């Protein structure tokens, strides 16, 4: 049996690979594969790092100070920490031009999900209406992934918007601020639901609360953003490590895949790429699975078609969740002691019910614990000394809701290539236009979020609300949609290309709709579903 060749080690690729390996297939995984650096002082808390490192500035701000958010960063309240720079490093030969879209790319082992915050929200039947399958068809995938990666949480009020499934472990300990918010929600629950259509509950997070497969539980070190030093927060590179324990698995890092070539019957025969030094790399292919992330898989697909036919295609339907950051101040928490040794990311979620359930709005509520404070301080309306003093006294009371909105496939949001001269490498081109009516929809949702926060004794100052640029959520999808029937440039329900018989897609490129939920859990579940059903 010839091996299945997979491109990309992100969440889709590694779970596709692991499913095939467990079924006895041989797998070759081709990847650029920049590696995660080893954790620094894994037993230290965030405060401990500041006290114990010889050069804390180099670790927290970067040797070249790249981790500083200087004024003019367009309202972002946190930057990429230096320890995560490997996630966003780009290989030689990669070029992109954008219009209305600010994407992030990853060529790291584990892909963009190496920098995720662990939110694991299954799609419900309404959100799967455009998919050629329903909840019951993908449920096994979700449960399999939940078992593999470890998801903690509770089946509570938010289950109204996201189905319950097996293998959810006990939730993380709440920090004091999150705990107070949840208590207050209990007091005003009926009013909040009636007046604001708002439900609050525990986030479901891919973080362990007990030992599993050699990974330990969360130790509340407050270092999530800088990279969990104990591997409690799941990363796809954990599954890649598991794949590498199978004798039938070959990992081929250091290859930037450019395209595949096809024979006269449109079967893929070879995969082509370049090493880090630019040397050509060719691999024979029997079955190819693109799992390089929606944008990179589109690039490989477009370049392959161009090399085979001379035609530069245009793939419409690019989707990404609009995200809006809503900072808030909880009056109940002013003057309350502060415990930095706690889970740093979101522990609570907020759901806004909509008339059309597909337009559900999801908010991740992160109370401020450990953080680099200078991005927040510089946004306060005072000089920096006063801002620091004010921040210090309000620190325990600060939080942020990251509000996510759904997206749909549209013709004017697309991906294509451009090439200046025949010898030049192709440049990926991305164009995005907001949906008609989106500003009004966002405005209405934000009014409801602010209203809900006020009932929780929180104030969200409007000038500090930040609409993130399109592309910032990194939930890219929609360019070769799966459908029960279709023509060229679509995929079958088992994510097989309708253009090339031995090509499968395992990432978000086949999603025909994008709910307001982090898609990583669904990417993994769908990869398991396809690898189980089609192989």
């Amino acid at each position, binding site marked *: 049996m010839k091996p299945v060749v997979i491109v990309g080690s992100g969440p889709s690729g590694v779970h596709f690979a692991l499913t095939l390996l467990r079924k006895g297939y041989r797998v070759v995984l081709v990847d650029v594969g920049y590696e995660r650096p080893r954790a620094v002082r894994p037993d230290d808390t965030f405060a401990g790092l500041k006290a114990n490192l010889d050069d804390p500035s180099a670790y927290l701000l970067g040797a070249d100070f790249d981790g500083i958010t200087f004024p003019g960063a367009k309202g972002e309240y946190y930057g990429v920490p230096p320890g995560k720079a490997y996630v966003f490093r780009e290989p030689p030969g990669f070029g992109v031009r954008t219009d209305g879209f600010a994407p992030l790319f990853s060529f790291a082992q584990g892909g963009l999900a190496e920098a995720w915050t662990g939110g694991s929200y299954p799609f419900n039947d309404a959100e799967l209406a455009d998919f050629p399958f329903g909840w019951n068809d993908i449920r096994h995938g979700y449960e399999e992934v939940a078992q593999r990666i470890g998801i903690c949480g509770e089946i509570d009020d938010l289950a109204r918007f996201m189905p319950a499934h097996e293998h959810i472990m006990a939730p993380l300990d709440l920090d004091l601020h999150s705990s107070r918010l949840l208590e207050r929600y209990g007091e005003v629950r009926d009013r909040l639901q009636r007046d604001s259509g708002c439900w609050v509950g525990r986030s479901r997070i891919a973080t362990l609360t007990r030992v599993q497969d050699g990974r330990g539980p969360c130790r509340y070190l407050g270092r999530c953003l800088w990279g969990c030093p104990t591997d409690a927060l799941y990363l796809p590179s954990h599954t890649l490590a598991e794949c590498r324990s199978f004798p039938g698995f070959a990992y081929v890092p250091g290859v930037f895949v450019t395209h595949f070539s096809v024979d006269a019957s449109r079967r893929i025969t070879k995969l082509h790429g370049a090493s880090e030094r630019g040397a050509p790399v060719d691999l024979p292919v029997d079955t190819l699975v693109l799992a390089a992330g929606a944008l990179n898989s589109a690039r490989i697909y477009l370049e392959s078609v161009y090399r085979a036919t001379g035609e530069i295609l245009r793939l419409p339907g690019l989707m990404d969740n609009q995200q809006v950051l809503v900072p808030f101040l909880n009056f109940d928490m*002013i003057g309350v002691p502060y415990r930095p040794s706690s889970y740093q990311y979101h522990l609570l979620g907020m759901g806004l019910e909509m008339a059309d359930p597909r337009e559900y709005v999801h908010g991740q509520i992160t109370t401020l614990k450990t953080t680099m404070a200078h991005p927040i301080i510089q946004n306060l309306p005072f000089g920096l*000394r006063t801002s620091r003093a004010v921040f210090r006294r309000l620190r325990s009371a600060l939080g942020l809701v990251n509000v996510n909105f759904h997206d749909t496939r549209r013709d004017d949001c697309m991906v294509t290539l451009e090439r200046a001269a025949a010898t030049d490498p192709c440049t990926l081109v991305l164009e995005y236009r907001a949906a008609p009516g989106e500003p009004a929809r966002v405005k209405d949702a934000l009014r409801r979020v602010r209203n809900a926060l006020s009932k929780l004794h929180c104030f969200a100052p409007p000038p500090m609300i930040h609409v993130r640029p399109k592309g910032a959520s990194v939930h890219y999808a929609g360019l070769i949609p799966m459908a029960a029937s279709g023509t060229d440039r679509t995929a079958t329900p088992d994510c097989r290309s309708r253009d090339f018989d031995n090509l499968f897609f395992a990432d978000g490129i086949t999603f025909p709709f994008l709910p307001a939920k982090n898609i990583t859990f669904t990417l993994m579940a769908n990869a398991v579903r396809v690898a189980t059903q089609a192989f």
Partner: protein
Amino acid sequence: MADAPAVATDQECRTFTRYLCGMEASDYVLHQYARGLASAAFRDGPPVTSLDLALEAFARRGVATSALADTWARFVAPGGRLRRRLVLLLSILETGPAAAAFEPPAAGRARAFIELALLAMRFALLLPATLLIVGPLHLGVVLRGRARVS
């Protein structure tokens, strides 16, 4: 013996550290600040204007002038070079040397509200002072620029 620009940078760092956190800059902070000013991340900012230069020179005179120049810059030139210098130093200070100055003080609820009220009052006094002192400085920069153009 240190060269003149290095001495000036150290002096600037000491003044700004006293302004931001009310403490003396350690050798580590002085070293990191000088490195930070030379880094591509710092230099990769907007073009330097004559207002930037005037505000920096004014701020270097002492803690009080730093407060006035920074407050003016917050509203008039928030992305300017003075703010970039101060944010660079602030970020270095919070990585450890002055970490406690970013943590909540051990105070009860009532004391926190009183301290916030005092901060608000101090800022309310600082604003008109900034307008009276830095406003004319800004106006001078604008007029000098016009005179140069004409």
